[in-house]
């Protein structure tokens, strides 16, 4: 694992062994090593190497399940204990250490990161495999660069989900941004440069705010500790005392001293209350990724221009980083900010739900429609988190996973037909179910899953969020109205999805498409897992997701509500 060594250079050999042996490190850097391999491999072998790498990564990430099934403790609640910050596969080593700054190489997972890691590795593998036929694309050149960037992207994404040091988190965040920029900008459609630049600018704007928050949080935590006498015992590590600011996300969230300082109304930044401002900074950074109206306009362009596998990654994983960011940074660290913004956030969420659905209804471009539908779906995530109820949090988390399954499937379905027809005009399609029966069946599953049909993954998230929102009515009177408005989206969603199905798959066969071959074995193999998961998640939500997430989510929520109750 010498690559790990490079990344964590400047530490003593023993720790290097630790790193090399650490599961998360391996998971995170396997793709990067695959990228190196692609760098030197002969051209014909590249794509197989890439696909194999992503497959191995996926399989290896499955070993994480041993956390739950290794012991008799079966659920997240049991595994991650009774305090937020009980982690697994932790590795923390000093990375950049001066007398005032201590940036650590700090990886670990809990119920928040775990399902997203599995999702990431799975979606990455599937989409990597989906790029198998990239020579046939309009821009079929640069296979080597493509797959290298792809694998680097995967490393970046995985890193975001496992790194618990804000600095490291930020680095991975940016690391993930660049390959995406090139993947869209080079292998994209007609207006790829525009889309790529737009994506880049939006995300960069977000990460700038995040950077400000990062620095501010570091120094203010330092002030907090200084005020407390310069010596504060760590909240969750034995015999560790903090003497200056920290980037440790868990510490920032759980340390009473820091929390008290952050949330006290006298703490100011640019003469604005600290917690709300920082929350807003982080929130915008993540909301752009989620994306949330009005920061969403990069998404349709990026999706439409990006090649199919990249759209899958984009929809399947990148959007989840926003939600993950909320749950990992915004809410635990700035609960008071959350309370301050709750109404705004919920309203934005509802607006995104309805607005995205309406926009999707009006699209004539197949891919754009799916893109807008993901805006609508991610609105549920925001809504569920914003109302801060158990059901809401659980629903939001589930919605992330569910959308991570269904929307890549939808995008791949679009890609399948795009490879054959070379256009995406919904109104020019028709009768494809007759032409390609297998494809039609798969498409029905995929789109009904994203429609939120009960018994499929989409439903659980939506209904959980809706009920959770309504449940918040006891705290926030406005929650009733919002829940009802959000519930209205079930009609809109059904509207545009069914209309889409009718226009594309039903009806008489058209001559121009009569010659289309049905989905190939590879495509079936890519679609099948997602279809299967869409069903299984819908039927056994507890065994597939809730058992792994709820414990941690409840801890986070308890932490947040507790902190809010402290507000005078």
């Amino acid at each position, binding site marked *: 694992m010498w690559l790990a060594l490079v990344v964590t250079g400047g530490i003593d050999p023993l720790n290097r062994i630790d790193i090399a042996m650490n599961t998360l490190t391996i998971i995170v850097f396997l793709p990067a090593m695959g990228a190196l391999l692609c760098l030197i491999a002969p051209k014909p072998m590249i794509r197989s190497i890439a696909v194999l790498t992503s497959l191995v990564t996926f399989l290896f990430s499955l070993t994480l399940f041993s956390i739950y099934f290794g012991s008799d403790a079966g659920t997240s609640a049991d595994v991650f204990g009774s305090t937020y910050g009980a982690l697994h596969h932790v590795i923390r080593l000093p990375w950049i250490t001066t007398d005032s700054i201590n940036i650590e190489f700090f990886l670990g997972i809990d119920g928040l990161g775990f399902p997203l890691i599995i999702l990431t590795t799975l979606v990455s593998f599937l989409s990597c495999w989906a790029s198998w036929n990239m020579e046939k694309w309009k821009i079929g050149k640069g296979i080597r660069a493509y797959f290298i960037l792809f694998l680097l992207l995967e490393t970046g994404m995985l890193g975001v989900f496992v790194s618990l040091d804000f600095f490291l988190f930020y680095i991975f965040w940016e690391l993930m941004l660049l390959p995406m920029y090139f993947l869209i900008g080079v292998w994209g459609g007609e207006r790829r440069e*525009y889309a790529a630049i737009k994506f880049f600018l939006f995300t960069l704007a977000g990460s700038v705010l995040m950077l400000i928050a990062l620095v501010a949080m570091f120094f203010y935590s330092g002030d907090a500790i200084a005020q407390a006498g310069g010596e504060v015992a760590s909240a969750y590590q034995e015999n560790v005392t903090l003497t200056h600011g920290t980037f440790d996300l868990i510490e920032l969230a759980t340390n009473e001293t820091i929390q008290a300082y952050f949330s006290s109304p006298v703490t100011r930044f640019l003469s604005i209350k600290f917690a709300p401002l920082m929350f807003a900074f982080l929130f915008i950074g993540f909301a752009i990724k989620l994306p949330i109206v009005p920061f969403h306009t990069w998404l349709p362009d990026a999706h439409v221009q990006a090649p199919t596998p990249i759209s899958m990654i984009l929809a399947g994983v990148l959007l989840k980083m926003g939600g993950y960011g909320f749950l990992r940074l915004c809410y635990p660290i700035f609960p008071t900010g959350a309370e301050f913004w709750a109404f705004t956030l919920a309203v934005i969420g509802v607006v995104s739900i309805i607005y995205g659905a309406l926009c999707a209804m009006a699209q004539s471009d197949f891919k754009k429609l799916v893109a807008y539908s993901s805006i609508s779906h991610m609105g549920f995530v925001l809504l569920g988190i914003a109302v801060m109820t*158990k059901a809401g949090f659980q629903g939001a988390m589930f919605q992330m996973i569910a959308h991570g399954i269904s929307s890549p499937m939808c995008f791949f379905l679009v890609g399948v037909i795009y490879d054959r027809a070379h256009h995406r005009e919904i109104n020019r399609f028709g009768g494809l179910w*007759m032409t390609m029966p297998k494809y039609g069946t798969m498409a029905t599953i995929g789109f009904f899953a994203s429609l939120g049909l009960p018994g499929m993954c989409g439903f659980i998230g939506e209904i959980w969020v809706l009920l959770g929102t309504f449940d918040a009515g006891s705290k926030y009177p406005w929650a009733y109205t919002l829940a009802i408005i959000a519930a209205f989206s*079930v009609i809109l969603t059904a509207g545009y999805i069914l209309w889409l199905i009718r226009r594309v798959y039903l009806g008489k066969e058209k001559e121009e498409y009569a010659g289309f071959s049905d989905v190939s074995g590879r495509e079936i193999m890519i679609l099948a897992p997602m279809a299967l998961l869409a069903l299984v998640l819908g039927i056994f939500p507890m065994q597939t997701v809730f058992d792994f997430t709820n414990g941690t989510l409840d801890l986070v929520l308890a932490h947040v509500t507790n902190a809010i109750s402290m507000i005078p």
Partner: protein
Amino acid sequence: MNSHTYEILLALGVLSPFISFWLLVFVGPKLGKPLAGWVGVILGMGVPLAMASYVLLGWWFGEDAASRAMLGEQAFRYHWANLGTVPILVGIKLDSLTIAMYFMVTFIAFWIFFFSVGYMSGHSDEVDGKSKYHRFFAYLSLFAFSMLGLVLSSNLLFLFIFWELVGLCSYLLIGFYFHERVPQYAQMKAFITNRVGDFGFIIGLMLVYFQLGTLDLDDAARIFAEQYAAGTGIFASTFTMFGWSLATIMGVGLFCGAMGKSAQFPLHVWLPDAMAGPTPVSALIHAATMVAAGVYLVARVFRLMTPEALMFVAAIGCITLTLMALIAMVQTDIKKCLAYSTLSQLGYMIFGLGCGAWIAALFHLITHAFFKAMMFLGSGQVIEGCHHEQDMRKMGGLIKKMPVTAITFLVGVLAISGFGIPGTNIGLGGFFSKDEILAVAWVRTFDWNDYSRHEAEHGEHHAASVPAIDSDDDASDNLNGNHKQMLLASDPQHGDSHAAPQHGEAHTASESPRGLKPSAHGDNAHGRAGIFSHVPPMPKWMFYLALFTAYITPFYMMRCWWMTFMGKPRDQHVHDHAHESFMMYFPLIILAVGTCFASYFLFRDLISDASTAATIAPMVLATDGHLHTAAIAAAHHWLITGVGGSFVVGFVIAILIYGRGLGIASAIKNTVGIQQIHTILDHKYYIDELYHLVWVKGCLCIAHIARFFDTWVVDMTYNTLAKLTERLAAFMGLIIDTHGVDGIYNGIAETAIGMGEAVRRPQTGRIRNYVLFAAGGATVVIVLMLLYWGVGSPEQVAMLTP
């Protein structure tokens, strides 16, 4: 018997169609015709039917009421997931109603599957050789799975899940011929209309979850009653909308779902169009089972309904049953005619539940399921025979060609018209169920609260005869007592045994409707007994509309039958082609027999057994006729004797008009006044047009506005931001040449240019500009330092200095 045996058997019965679904999906094409069909029949419905029959007999004859209740109590629950903190327990609602529905569904569905094996072989191959035969049975199996699951669910959430699944099956099956244009729209219409209902359903769910803190049917009802008694929870909130309390809104919300599924008035539009699907589908889903699911839902959540909510239910039902019956009078498409009669009958059921005639409504549901399924199969037989001719005006005289169909169809017509011999217990389904609904409706039009108060005032001297019914047990005993009496009024089975005293009382009561009140004198229940202290009386017009429709129904049914089977053949070609085949009319015969005996069969007992205090008492004591049993008995008796023969009138008129072909009918149609009415009815009150204008067009319009907004406002904002950066840059001497901005014509491209430029411009290699920018940035920072961070202030300096 082992306490879980029934559940296991029922569960197996649900599982087997699920298995057959996947089997048919994967290996269906290889099975081919008709093998795939038989798989569907055996695995998809045969097994469930076997289970159902076994369970039914075991349940009814093997257990007594106590053990039945006990079994229902200790039914198995599986912890499916946690909704927030509320555990969602999935299990089987094991009571007589479940079993009755389960048996009805499996029985009818089995014969419809059987019918389809023959029918679909001629109807599934339109699409250039690609057979959809197996697909049809796969869908049917999936439907069977969902429908049975719906019936069994003990949990509102799961009820909702299966609810949606049957919706999906109906969607897939309506659009089975999706290569044609009509079914495509029909299926969309069906699904989306149902979704509109589900919107309400979800709101109801939210309120149940939030206010009652559970989604389990029984717990919810219990907590609801407790909360009413204590005036806490949902009854504590002062929130009102359209003058409805929160509790009422909850009930109405749940009912909205039923309005969608059971196609009640504002949402009825999808059902007639749904006839675009294959005929067996119309018979199974859109006549017998799925559309009845709405009624079933209302029956299940009956205990969560406030009187106001029930009043709303009744009103909707009443409107539906009248309007749809009127439309049915002018339909010429045989399936459409049946569809509208179905709507009308569903209206009757909903109306019955609204008045509180819980038993009667469900009883009507089951009898209706039998004869309507049969009639649809018959119509399918006819359509098949007249190769795909559905217009009744082209038919006629078919009785010679297809006698069995004609006879069975006639049985159905009689049943739906409430055929029976007044004063006796001989009659077909409607004769008992529909009339009882009317009876309850009639009784509910009086304000019994006055009477109750009156009773309460002079309650003392009744003390002996008035057991306090404030506690549930008493209520239940008392209620069972009332049940017995009530059943006598209409139930043939007990008729002989206890007829005398009961009828005697009824006679004394039935001299005049007004006389009803005193007749309830001996009745020992009164308003305070129910959980709802005040129950408003039902407006009279509802009763009269329902009664009026009772006269229309026989007319249009007989009209339909006569135009199809009697008279002279009007289209020789069709007539010559007509034929019938055993595979198809055998199920007809079975169902016809079922129709004849459904009302005498166990169903009535099962339902009344289900309607114990634990099921409906909290509500029904106050709103349903059970409180005023004797009165209802009297009213029912009076109705049966007085109005029971109403169907004759309808028949006579129908035969008079259509006996001699269509001449008279068209003559009437063209008379002034009638003509306009006819046009309106023919266009179904233009509701479809209205909806298309308001909802479809409106929604799309909004959607396009949203898209426009997205492109030209949201996106253009960023575009403009980019532009501003550009302008600023220009001002700072960044830009030598600015492209002309013409956002109106190509906004997107402009965005591209704007953002692209904004990024690219600074990269133009003018060092001095960089310097200027950097310096500007530095200046800003310093200004900030001066303004905000008070640099230079002593403490700051203290920080800076070593």
